[in-house]
């Protein structure tokens, strides 16, 4: 797949769901294309539909109508178990609250997705070690999550996301639970994954700092993508808020 070819094609997607007596219109006839090897941010206020879009792209959720095609696979056609299999092979997931298994070491947490592969135990261990080296935590691989800082835990989570060498990495507010210094380190690391390994990364974020690291930012509001003019205004507002954000120290990833 060439760098200019679209890895993700979201075509006329609508997603409605029921919450109690109310029907929520999370996405409304949304169309979006994300090229291979791009680092893309999905931005917007709470309830704008960005997390729903991320769930659809990563095969966690299904659209009410429209098509989601990722790496040539139309996700609508897959059953729940097929989707799980597909996610295991093609998607690396990063969450806001890290969500590591507290009773497993960093290395074991990273190796978890490899349980779904045919790799031998030795190969799994080697892969996990490599992934931890990429995120700069090789020397802490036998530590348990409770003994790691928030930033380190998120880096373990990133290593877990890349250990299977997926086509796509999706991150749901990966800096949302981190201080400014660690947030920049994580964004830097994600950028490095894109530039060094050619990974396609889609990230939901409220963090205006993210604009400095991504190739594209798509702004959503009330379930629709904003047009260029509205997006520019939103971007300017974010940049302005970045200017008023507290200064951050330079961080080595």
């Amino acid at each position, binding site marked *: 797949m060439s760098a200019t070819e679209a890895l993700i094609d979201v075509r006329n997607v609508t997603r409605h769901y029921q919450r109690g007596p109310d029907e929520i219109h999370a996405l409304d006839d949304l169309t979006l294309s994300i090229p291979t090897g791009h680092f893309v941010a999905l931005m917007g206020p709470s309830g704008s539909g960005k997390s729903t879009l991320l769930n659809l792209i990563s095969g*966690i959720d299904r659209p009410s109508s429209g098509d989601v095609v990722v790496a040539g696979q139309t996700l609508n056609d897959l059953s729940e178990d097929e989707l*799980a299999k597909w996610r295991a*092979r093609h*998607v690396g997931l990063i969450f806001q609250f890290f*969500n590591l298994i507290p*009773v*497993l070491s960093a290395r074991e947490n990273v190796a978890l997705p*490899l*349980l779904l592969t045919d790799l031998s135990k030795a190969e799994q261990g080697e892969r996990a070690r490599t992934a931890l080296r990429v995120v700069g935590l090789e020397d802490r691989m036998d530590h348990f999550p409770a003994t790691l800082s928030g930033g380190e835990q998120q880096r373990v989570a990133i290593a877990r*996301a890349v250990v299977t060498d997926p086509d796509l990495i999706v991150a749901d507010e990966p800096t949302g639970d981190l201080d400014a210094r660690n947030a920049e380190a994580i964004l830097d690391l994600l950028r490095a994954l894109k530039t060094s390994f050619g990974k396609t990364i889609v990230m939901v974020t409220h963090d205006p700092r993210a604009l400095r690291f991504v190739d594209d930012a798509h702004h959503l509001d009330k379930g629709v993508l904003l047009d260029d003019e509205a997006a520019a205004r939103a971007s300017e507002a974010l940049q302005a808020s970045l200017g008023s954000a507290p200064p951050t120290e330079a961080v080595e990833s």
Partner: protein
Amino acid sequence: MSYTRLVIANLLRNKLRTAFTGGAITLAVVLVCLLLTMPAALDRLLENAASDVRISVHHKAGLVYSMPESFTRKVRAVDGVEAAVGMVWYGGAFEESGKVTFPNFAVEAEHLGAVYPDYPIEPEQLADFVRYRDGAIVGRQTMDKYDWDLGDRIALTSTIWPVNLDFRIVGVIEDPQAPSLWFSREYLDQALEAQLGEGLGVVGTIWVRAAAPELVGPIMQTVDEMSRNSEAETASETEKSFFTNFFGSLQGFVQIILVVTGLVTLCIIFIAANTASMNVRERSGEIAVLKAIGFARRSIFGALFGEAVLVSTLAGVLGLGLAIGLTTYLRSFANGGGLGPMSGFVLTGPVLVQGLFLSLFIGMLAGVVPSVGAARKPVVEALREIF
């Protein structure tokens, strides 16, 4: 990394909770195994104790009522009867507490050997029993319990008769589960004569040995016919039937305990199921993430179900070990004379298998509902609950 490591790590997450859950299952397995040995032990006891040619003749109204002494002679004259011996309960207490701790009977010494030729008693000892008026034959269980030896003299205080007798041990029933003490009826008869001016004159139970198994039925019928319309109508029964009735109340007790144990087991299933549900609920976030990164429903179910089954099986194995230890201890204690029929209680292979299956069953039943629930929940719903 392996599924086994994942399951074990999760079990060790809350060690105290796992220990308590396992402890409850262990206790259930120990209880059930111990109780399952009781009916089998009683059956075995009856098989070992009962002869197919021995008959018990006693008062129709019950064992506490007596029959005229002369009736023994009449029974002895019935066609097909090879030998008959009359017995009278002495109710002698050896210990200072005055409790009767082993059965003891006055018997017709000269007829005893002919009724019990299958009992392991040396012929010379039987001869001594007839020869010495104060001689006693004692079961090995009681001999060991009180550390008696052949030739020892012992004194028993009767709880029934107004005489206290002392005996010389002249013979031993060499069966580790035999508790009885037999002594000469003549000895008690003479002591009562001296004390009260009149002898025994009655018999409590007459044990009859038929010449052949097929004669048992006709003999019982004839004996009961002989006593009909007398003051002491008899009820004859086979030795097996006698012991079955004797232990009947114990069997009823066993059944009650089995019902209670079943209920306790049910409670433990609920407790284990509740614990499994709590485990799943507390880890809903982790389970959602596992699903999101590609773990299929079957894998999630397997890991959670495996936890419940593993803890219950390990607890079951521990329970079996404890049950084996306990029954071994009970047997050694019983052989010392403490538990009588319980000395036959052995944890057999089938009981062990049943115990193991019980623990598996508890684990499966406790684990299946929360595991299915967690596995079936759509990933997006699971994630929405935690984020």
